């Protein structure tokens, strides 16, 4: 579906709300037909970005181009985009079918065309049987599907989604993640989704952008961002990550050694722009760590004694809170497959181990 073209382009877009800069010189190109997520904590400017694309707000500087057209001064009702609101914003005084037909009616389409298209859209979200219900008579998940149908029935060039799964309970959210991605592939429309849920963004997106304080921190595929976060913030936000600050001692080829006060030397893969003497952050994901009663290195290049501060049994894994020799707290998630005998309890001593390749070095 990716024909190489860009569906949405932002060039140096800035938006101020009073004294705060909500979006700060944001430049971004979203490809035609991709599922693109903008991920960030609340106040990161992601929702403002979406509202700028929808046309509810106008940028103070920079330009927005959708489908090759400059959007300056173009009101929301004349943009080739539709928004799925966080609270769905279904019209409470209209039936499901009337809600879905609204956009087509406003565009002045003939009745003969509106009927079949509404029926098709409701079929697509499996709500044909509830066409005459009022939104208040539907469950949260059904309301969400009506909101999707109401937007998609217009066949917009770009579908904007504001925290689309935020109001659903966890089980439903997992199902909808898969369903939403499948739907996007089926209709072939560019989806731009704003979310604060990293898991959601990683599962659904072809590519995603991480925003913080109105600035774009990193753009890439979920794998890029998960395995090679560009900054400490991204590493932390994309998933709970353990970190230690230190200073690079030396670099030999692809291998860097980092001195960490109170711990000693840690091995990590070298990254461009990091030389001896650079202050860095070494991060390791909790699921990449190993815990053992045995002091032997066993092929793990990194190795240190720790004390188990807390052990939480979580079904398929046990989550540990560990005290490092320098009193830092790290988290580890160890699979339970090995049986109860291998588990650790609070207060026990253990050896923490990980391979060089599992660590990510971030310039501080």
């Amino acid at each position, binding site marked *: 579906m990716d024909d190489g073209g860009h569906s949405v382009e932002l060039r140096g877009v800035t938006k101020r709300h009073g004294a705060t800069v909500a979006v700060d010189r944001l430049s971004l190109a979203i490809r035609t037909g991709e599922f693109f997520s903008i991920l960030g904590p609340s106040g990161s400017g992601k929702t403002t970005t979406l509202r700028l694309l929808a046309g509810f707000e106008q940028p103070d500087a920079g330009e927005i181009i959708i489908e090759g057209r400059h959007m300056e001064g173009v*009101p929301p*009702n004349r943009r080739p985009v539709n928004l799925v609101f966080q*609270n769905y*914003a*279904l*019209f409470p005084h209209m039936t499901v079918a009337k809600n879905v037909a*609204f956009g087509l009616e*406003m565009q002045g389409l003939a009745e003969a065309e509106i009927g079949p298209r509404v029926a098709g859209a409701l079929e697509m979200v499996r709500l044909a049987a509830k066409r005459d219900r009022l939104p208040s008579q539907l469950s949260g998940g059904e309301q969400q599907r009506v909101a999707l149908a109401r937007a998609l029935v217009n066949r917009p060039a770009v579908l904007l989604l504001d925290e689309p799964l935020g109001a659903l309970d966890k089980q439903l959210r997992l199902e909808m993640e898969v369903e939403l991605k499948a739907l996007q592939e089926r209709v072939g429309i560019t989806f731009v989704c704003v979310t604060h849920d990293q898991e959601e963004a990683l599962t659904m997106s072809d590519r995603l952008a991480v925003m913080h304080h109105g600035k774009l921190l990193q753009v890439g595929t979920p794998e890029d961002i998960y395995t090679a976060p560009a900054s400490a913030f991204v590493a932390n936000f994309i998933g709970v990550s353990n970190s230690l600050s230190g200073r690079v001692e030396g670099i030999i080829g692809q291998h860097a050694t980092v001195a960490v006060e109170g711990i000693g030397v840690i091995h990590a893969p070298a990254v461009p722009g990091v030389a001896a003497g650079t202050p860095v952050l070494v991060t390791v994901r909790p699921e990449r760590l190993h815990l053992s009663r045995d002091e032997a290195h066993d092929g793990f290049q990194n190795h240190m004694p720790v004390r188990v501060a807390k052990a939480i049994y979580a079904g398929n894994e046990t989550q540990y809170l560990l005290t490092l020799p320098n009193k830092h707290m790290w988290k580890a998630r160890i699979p339970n497959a090995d049986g109860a005998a291998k588990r650790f309890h609070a207060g026990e001593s253990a050896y923490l181990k990980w391979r060089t390749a599992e660590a990510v070095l971030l310039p501080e």
Partner: protein
Amino acid sequence: MTPPPKPTSSFPWLILPPAGVLIVLFGVPLLLVLAVSFASRGTYGGVEWALTFANYTSIADPLYLRIFWRSLWLAVATTAICLVMGFPLAYVIARAPKRWQGLLLFLVIIPFWTNFLVRTYAWMFILRTEGLLNQALLSAGLIHEPLNILFTDWAVLIGLVYGYLPFMVLPLYAALERLDRSLVEAAWDLYARPVQVFTKVVLPLSRPGVIAGCVLVFIPSLGAYVTPDLLGGARTMMVGNLIQHQYLVVRDWPFGSALSFVLMAGVLAAVLYYLRAGGARSLT
């Protein structure tokens, strides 16, 4: 949208004092008036108890029907003008930043702090031939002769709109304030032009407020008495003035009582018809 609290059924005696006040001070007098309306006027203005429908049949006199008709159109016009003027005002207040809303509502209510009679006298100063309005229009060169507004139906209409506008604004504000802003944006996003956003979403969803405001303005306008008395002069009588006239000047209590009951029945019929036709659904 929280459900109203359940009535505290364990303390039914709490409603006894208000119920008692209503029965003694409202219910009983009303029954007395009803009884008097079937009596006849004594020679010196007293009440003679003899069952008669004469008071009701004499209302059919064209003279009185004209007064009822004038009252009706003035009340309908007042309601319509209040709605047209009050809606944008209520909308602006409801969409203003939260910290301004209290102040703006306060400004709407502030005229109530002054006695209604005093405010109506102020309107006489504004509207009379040498009044502020004519002076302003003359000095602006918009007119060459002073307009004759005071003591006409127009003066009554202006006074009624002025007096009852807040009763329209407050329920409209309450309805519009509850209106989810994202619904307006959703309509806009779904290709509705601003006028369509208003007619398809804002207006239907604020209907309970429109209905409440219209009822609250229509009822007191129909029975208005101070405003037509002061601003309308002797020539433009409304039903309220006619009833007052019968009680206090002509001293024909039975006829005044009959007029009161016809007015009440008219108001009740009009409001019921309105709720049936326009608003029963949105009041549920």
